[in-house]
């Protein structure tokens, strides 16, 4: 008996239509459709695509939570052992839909799921922790390479075989750490790597650093005297008692607090939530991290028009880059909506 696999694709790969059909509501078909044919062939006689679920990209993107529940029910009806999604290549909404489905299937059905995307597809950043995503080219020209890799990984997962490292299996790094035992000590491996580097030979790091994006510098403030300036910090300053329980490390949230009426922060009213540095000095005088006292003086002197009446704070201590990025984007939107012209961000 072969494993039952369901395949999810968008309206385009189902041959229904392009952008003009992107609001196509979810539907199911028996057996394979479009790229499912090649995937089914690659699965061989060990697994079979028993059904295909199709959904328009815009339909999915317009209400992701609702649609993923809807599509999940259609998938569930086929009683699958595993699910294949896409591949979505560099199609953003399609990739996000595949990622969201991968996340939902893993959580709700607990069965193996594999997708395929170009590394820059936004679906990768959003969902790479939730599912295996085979790295593909940016367009359907890469179908020939994506199909066997997706099928091979799915079969491994179905049979409960050990999945190798990203480079071995062709999937995009999920950011998961696993224990691995080596024959040689870290010091020796480190020196070996260093010698290879000196010789200009290729070597593979055991701990890749995150890649940070870059933004163009903003134009300068031309009229400071008429500007509103806000304070933001990763140093964990918060009202005394840390009312929102911002974590001392690996923060999962940020705080938004009023400084209306405060000319100075003191140990009586504020403290730090940060667990990564000696908190003595910040707890004694929180202005050492969030300079409210000096900012108030300068506001009164008219150096700038207004100190924004709210400050934003989180703890930058082992905090995931993805979380920090999310906090930053949300805080920036709020500051812009409040008419803030400039920000002083302080870090410990």
């Amino acid at each position, binding site marked *: 008996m072969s494993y039952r696999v369901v395949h999810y694709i968008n309206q385009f790969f189902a041959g229904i239509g392009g952008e003009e059909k992107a609001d196509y509501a979810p539907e199911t078909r028996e057996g394979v459709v479009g790229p499912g044919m090649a995937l089914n062939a690659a699965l061989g006689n060990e697994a079979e695509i028993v059904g295909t679920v199709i959904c328009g990209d815009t339909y999915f993107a317009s209400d992701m939570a609702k649609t993923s529940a809807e599509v999940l029910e259609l998938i569930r009806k086929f009683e699958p052992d595993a699910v294949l999604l896409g591949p979505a290549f560099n199609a953003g909404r399609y990739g996000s839909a595949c990622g969201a489905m991968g996340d939902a299937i893993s959580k709700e059905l607990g069965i193996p799921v594999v997708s395929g995307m170009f590394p820059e597809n936004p679906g990768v950043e959003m969902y790479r922790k939730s599912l295996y995503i085979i790295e593909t080219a940016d367009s359907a020209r890469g179908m020939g390479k994506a199909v066997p890799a997706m099928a091979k990984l799915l079969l491994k997962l179905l049979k409960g075989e050990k999945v190798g490292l990203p480079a071995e299996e062709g999937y995009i790094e999920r950011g998961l750490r696993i224990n691995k035992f080596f024959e040689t000590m870290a010091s020796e491996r480190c020196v070996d790597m260093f010698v290879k580097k000196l010789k200009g030979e290729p070597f593979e790091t055991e701990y890749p650093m995150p890649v*940070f*994006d*870059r*933004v*163009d*510098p*903003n*134009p*300068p*403030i*031309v009229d*400071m005297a008429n500007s509103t*300036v806000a304070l933001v910090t990763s*140093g964990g300053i918060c009202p005394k008692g840390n009312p929102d329980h911002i974590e001392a490390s690996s923060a999962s949230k940020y705080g938004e607090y009023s400084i209306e009426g405060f000319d100075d922060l003191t140990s009586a009213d504020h403290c730090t939530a940060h667990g990564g*540095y*000696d*908190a*003595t*000095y*910040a707890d*004694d*005088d929180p*202005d*050492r*991290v*969030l*300079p409210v*006292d*000096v*900012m108030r*003086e*300068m506001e009164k002197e008219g*150096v*700038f028009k207004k100190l924004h009446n709210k400050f934003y704070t989180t703890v930058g201590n082992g905090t995931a880059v993805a979380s920090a990025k999310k906090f930053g984007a949300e805080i920036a939107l709020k500051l812009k909506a409040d008419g803030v012209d*400039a*920000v*002083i*961000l*302080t*870090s*410990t």
Partner: protein
Amino acid sequence: MVHVCTIVPISLTVGANRIVPAVAIPHPLGDPSKPFEEEKTIRRHLVEKALKALQTPVSEQTVFND
């Protein structure tokens, strides 16, 4: 935005465009070894530098030293 921070290399790595080096990790805008008025002068100086950085056109990552 201007980033006032002590570990400038981290700020450069994560991509801040205007950077003002601060005093020390546990007290970036203060120095508890100094009397309070002197400490406040240090803080005021750093904030002034931060505001100056915000008013300075930059085309690439720039560290504002004294």
